[in-house]
């Protein structure tokens, strides 16, 4: 399957380069962003919690329409976020799009290749700095250690957009898998994992509705993802499977001077073995955030957000984690709540600066999630600040 995806990607790149060379007018867009950040009291960015310049995001994209039915689109990015996700260059998306149906009211498109995750409020452009409300997104839903898996899939996406008497609709479906790098595996399972983690299957569905001529948007999204782990040499972990299921609900309300976004989720995680033979866990986590943005002037936007996450809704205090680990894992690995204050300052039409401060309680969304690092994350309360300058074209 991996070989097939690599070959398909190479074929798509070759086709893309060929058509670009013949194109009379090719649109190139992109972004460059550099920042400085510090997560004091946790390993969120650096192991030692020190000041870091690992806040680099660079991307370039292009699209070329062959005719009214087919279109190529692709984006390459270079990212460095410290411990948050894998550092390096990668193909963010690269697909061939086919217009399956097009009328004045409805259109249906199919994308084949590496697609973006169009299902969550900020997932489609979470790596594009100027499209985000803040440098660091709410970790309850936009969990950085899980970022590469949640970014999109190699496979098929169906995108439907339309209008009827009730309003405007976006209906999305995607099916595929994501490659899991060794660093991504370490973020999820810990550095002691010597085996191979594979993303076997990922299905997502979402519906967004905007009542006719209103400024409110309501969305729901469903996720079902399956993973398998194959034990490596001298491995403390064993063969096993993991299944993640998410139900998400969001509301976006926009006015001339402010915007309110709410996104909530319930996440079921089923684990069979992996940690040790015959281990079984089936828990429901819950989380979500409420975010307000106030447009103080044309150039200045203020942000305030509360983000809450509980790993197990039956054990919100984390007491069970502590007792099951015989006291080695503190309670605060059972939750992670975060308050954020930030500002966005528009320096010009294509350039802006974002600055923010986060105060966090708990460590449930800090990597690695399966085998918590109680040495580096020995604080129940910790902080993050970040300042990033971004330019786009």
């Amino acid at each position, binding site marked *: 399957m991996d070989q097939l995806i690599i070959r398909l990607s190479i074929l798509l790149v070759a086709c893309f380069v060929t058509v670009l060379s013949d194109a009379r007018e090719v649109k190139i867009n992109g972004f460059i962003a550099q920042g400085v950040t510090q997560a004091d009291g946790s390993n969120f960015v650096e192991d030692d919690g020190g000041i870091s310049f690992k806040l680099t995001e660079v991307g370039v994209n292009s699209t070329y329409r062959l005719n009214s039915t087919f279109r190529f689109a692709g984006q390459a990015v270079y990212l460095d976020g410290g411990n948050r996700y894998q550092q390096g260059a990668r193909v963010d998306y690269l697909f061939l799009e086919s217009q399956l149906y097009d009328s004045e009211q409805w259109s249906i498109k199919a994308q084949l290749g590496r697609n*973006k995750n*169009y299902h969550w409020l900020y997932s*489609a452009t979470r790596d594009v700095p*100027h499209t985000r409300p803040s440098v660091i997104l709410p970790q309850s839903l936009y969990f950085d250690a899980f970022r590469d898996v949640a970014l999109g899939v190699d496979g098929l996406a169906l*995108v439907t957009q339309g209008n009827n008497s009730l309003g405007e609709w976006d209906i999305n479906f995607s099916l595929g898998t994501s490659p899991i790098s060794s660093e991504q595996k370490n973020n999820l399972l810990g550095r002691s994992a010597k085996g191979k983690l594979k993303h076997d299957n990922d299905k997502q569905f979402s519906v967004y509705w905007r009542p*006719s*001529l209103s400024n*409110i948007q309501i969305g729901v999204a469903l996720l079902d993802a399956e993973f398998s782990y194959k034990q490596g040499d001298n491995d403390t972990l064993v063969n096993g499977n993991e299944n993640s299921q998410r139900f998400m609900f969001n509301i976006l309300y926009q006015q001339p001077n402010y915007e309110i976004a709410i996104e909530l989720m319930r996440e079921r995680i089923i684990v069979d073995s992996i940690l040790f033979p015959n281990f079984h866990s089936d828990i429901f986590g819950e989380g979500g955030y409420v975010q307000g943005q106030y447009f103080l002037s044309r150039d200045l936007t203020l942000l305030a957000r509360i983000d809450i996450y509980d790993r197990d809704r039956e054990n919100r205090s984390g007491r069970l984690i502590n007792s099951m680990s015989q006291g080695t894992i503190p309670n605060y690995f059972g939750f992670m709540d975060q308050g954020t204050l930030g500002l966005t300052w528009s320096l010009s039409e294509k350039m802006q600066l974002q600055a923010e401060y986060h105060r966090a309680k708990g460590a449930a969304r800090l990597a690695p999630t399966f085998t918590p690092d109680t040495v580096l994350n020995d604080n129940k309360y910790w902080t993050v600040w970040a300042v990033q300058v971004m330019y786009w074209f």
Partner: protein
Amino acid sequence: MLKSFVLSQFLFFLMIPVVYGLETDAQVFVNASVKLDDMTKIQARRIFSMRQTSWPDHSLITVYVMESSHQTHKVFSTQLLGLFPYQLDRIWNKLVYSGLGEEPIKVKNEQEMLDKISNTPGAIGYLLNNLQIDNANVKIVFVTEG
């Protein structure tokens, strides 16, 4: 019964800020090749948010807009579409940076807007009402509330 009343009042409250009359300071213009004399506000929203990319005769739509900070764009966006300029920016950013679609073509001023619409079959854009347009290749498309 009570539920539907509450819901209808809630939706009405949400819609208050976007209900505008047809008296606007901006007009939609198209290339003379476009066989259309009027469109609804909903259709105008679909076209300028790039959700509708072809005309009823299946020819491609080419959308021209000005920078978000341009006064003409602000008037057009808020009065004619009932959308705040930042909402359109976000829609277009998502299209461009997620591969979902293409953004409109940006022009610097009214004269360039007029030239582009005039010279591009299937083109659509907007201009302020107070401009005297004497160009056989462009025509007004009236936007109705519908």
